[in-house]
């Protein structure tokens, strides 16, 4: 029973979307199902947040190496949640504005002064690591690697103004930016299309297996 009910729900919801796609008169059912999904997804965010908190508490209580990071997660989680849930604001708006995103709110301050710089810094580090990885990995070891290396150099130069500055004397269509466009519009496009079609076919077959109850791994089956 613990498996049959989730399988029935999965099959029923899947069938709704298949039927309503082909029979427009039944679209109102799809609207209701979509509302349900939006509500469930909103709860899923809570579930994810609480799960993060639970795992962090368990990690902290185990006192294993790295438990300090869990403590930081818990403290930051609670402060941010409190700022978002409680009607607290900074400065002259203190306790007067219930919109957590209002100008000068504590939540906005945390976002602008803590989250934005930390998030941007972490991502910005990529530029340095990509440069270092390129230096070590881009070697013309064989024909395929040389092709990749050449395409990468054309893209890197063609996607910045320097490419046209170097090859500006060439006729239109022969500049590095034009070559970068050719790479994007033909080999990249063809490769992406093949990948997308493959993924789409995989999604359709997996979805059918789920709707028909053949795929049972999500309810703990084989």
């Amino acid at each position, binding site marked *: 029973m613990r498996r049959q009910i989730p399988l029935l729900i999965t099959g029923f919801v899947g069938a709704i979307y298949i039927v309503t796609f082909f029979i427009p008169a039944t679209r109102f059912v799809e609207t209701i199902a979509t509302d349900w999904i939006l509500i469930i*997804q909103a709860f899923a965010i809570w579930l994810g947040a609480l799960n993060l908190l639970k795992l962090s508490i368990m990690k902290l209580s185990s006192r294993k190496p790295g438990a300090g990071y869990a403590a930081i997660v818990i403290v930051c989680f609670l402060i941010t949640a409190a700022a978002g849930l409680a009607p607290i604001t900074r400065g002259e708006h203190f306790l007067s504005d219930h919109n957590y995103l209002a100008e000068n709110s504590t939540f906005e301050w945390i976002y602008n002064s803590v989250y934005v710089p930390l998030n941007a810094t972490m991502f910005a580090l990529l530029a340095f690591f990509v*440069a270092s990885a390129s*230096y070590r990995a881009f070697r013309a070891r064989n024909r395929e690697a040389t092709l990749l290396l050449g395409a990468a150099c054309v893209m*890197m130069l063609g996607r910045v103004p320097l490419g046209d500055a170097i090859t500006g004397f060439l006729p239109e269509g022969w500049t590095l930016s034009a070559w970068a466009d050719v790479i994007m519009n033909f080999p990249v496009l063809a490769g992406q299309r093949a990948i997308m079609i493959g993924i789409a076919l995989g999604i359709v077959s997996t979805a059918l297996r789920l709707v028909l109850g053949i795929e049972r791994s999500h309810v703990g089956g084989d």
Partner: protein
Amino acid sequence: MFERLLALDRRWIFLFVAVALTIPFFLGLSCKSYVSPEVKALYAALEELRPNSKVIVSFDYDPASEPELNPMADAFMKYAFHHRLKLICIGLWPQGPLEVDRCFNRVLADPEIQKLNPVYGVDYVNLGFQSGNEFAIQGMGASIYNVFPNDMRGTATSQIPIMMDVRDFSNVDFVFNLSAGYPGTVEWVQVAVDRYGVTLGAGNTAVQAPLVYPYLGSGQLKGLLGGMKGGAEFEALSGHTGKATKFMVSQTFAHLVVILFIVMGNVAYFAAKRKGGRA
């Protein structure tokens, strides 16, 4: 010597990249961008919109992608205000509505935009975040009021002047999606364009852009701003020179440094190989 080059401490590379990125800020250099066909196509699609056209702008990114997407968001907003387009901003990422606010704060600080005197609720609105990813888009196809019942200030969406006649996608003239991943442009194409016939343009991070090129080729996506370069090209076309144009100089220098290191690495690799050393 070549062996030492092959084993170069990566901190030297970091140093050169840092110098390449920061020095151009102090030199005041500028460069002219070649405008790619996908940016021209987006601009042409926007030029077809009449004043008072309703445009949904979906901010689907977080601060990590701000350097690439903020300049194009700013340029797009400025273009929209100058052309009297009505902006309905949403976020399918939780950070989206905050990015909307940050964008409006920057754009509305511009004296040229202040002269136009855009009014919240009449010329632009921030409807906030809705969870559900592609299901939120699908829900908007049936009823925007249902998916976004209130704006960020708590006003009922149906009571906001700009939203009074915008019930679903059939009342929207254009959608512009700023995307750094999932949910993003792919989902907007698959649901809003394919199911509801929405006209869609997008601004993506450079890493994300190749993933949506198939939709450009098929015409499902009207135009695309790819990475900072796309932002700089849009700034050039719209005449609002901003951060993307300025930052392109840094990006140019950084690319140059990376290419020089790749060339240096290959020279060292082949020289070491010829000598029978480590490679």
